């Protein structure tokens, strides 16, 4: 259960950024190389590659290297997990209660 919540956290983190969302939208059309993906963005390549790493770390995409070209594609399985309504609700509640626990410990410290 905790692991599912953690992996959902990764998915939501990946999806929380507009650049990464645009990359995902682009990949929903077809697989693409790093340079094809980077082309529409006015961003230094190393920063852009960081975004790709976050996406890959979340399991939303995977990549394959052929010669000198790395090609990215969507990973539909993880997307279906993100689509699962109850998993999202659970993720929401887990994060909410994590914040509650952190806040309570902080309150308790202050009252000492």
């Amino acid at each position, binding site marked *: 259960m905790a692991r599912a919540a953690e992996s959902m956290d990764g998915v939501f983190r990946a999806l929380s950024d507009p650049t990464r969302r645009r990359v995902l939208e682009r990949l*929903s059309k077809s697989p693409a190389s790093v340079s094809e993906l980077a082309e529409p963005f006015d961003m230094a390549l190393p920063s852009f590659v960081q975004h790709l790493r976050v996406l890959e770390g979340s399991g939303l995409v995977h990549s394959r290297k052929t010669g000198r070209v790395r090609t990215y594609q969507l990973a539909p399985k993880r997307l279906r997990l993100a689509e699962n309504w109850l998993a999202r609700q659970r993720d929401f509640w887990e994060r909410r209660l994590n914040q509650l626990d952190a806040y309570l410990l902080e309150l308790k410290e202050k009252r000492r």
Partner: protein
Amino acid sequence: MTLPSLLKPDPTLDLVLERVIDVPPELVWAAWTKPEHLSKWFCPAPWKVVDCEIDLRPGGMFRTVMRSPEGKDFPNTGCYLEIVPNKRLVWTDALLPGYRPAADPFFTAIVTLEPRGTGTRYIAMGMHRDEAGRKRHEEMGFHQGWGTALDQLVAHAKTM
């Protein structure tokens, strides 16, 4: 601690989360029932609670306004059903303050606390409405920020 016997979680619709924390029940209770506390944690970052109103009695208002990272506000209004200080709190959005039926009910939440050593064991249970109700809530809900992009992706993923 077990849930009251009339509560029967449905695994396809309901969530039951249990935590143990080394903080006394009175403090946990305050965090759930005082706006100045609840606003601090009730909404997972980067969303924020920007307004909160609590009238802590059966039928009394429980209202929060949650703000998305894009600055859009989503009000949620419901009422309390059961209040047993330091033990149990039940509320729903199926009824508005004064028990008036709501137009688009979605959930009932039950929080149960019990002392455990110097701390508290608490169970948060959320009971939700059927699929159709859930979808509508989701459309106005927390994932609005990336909902459209995700929907397109999911639609595409299904064809893969």
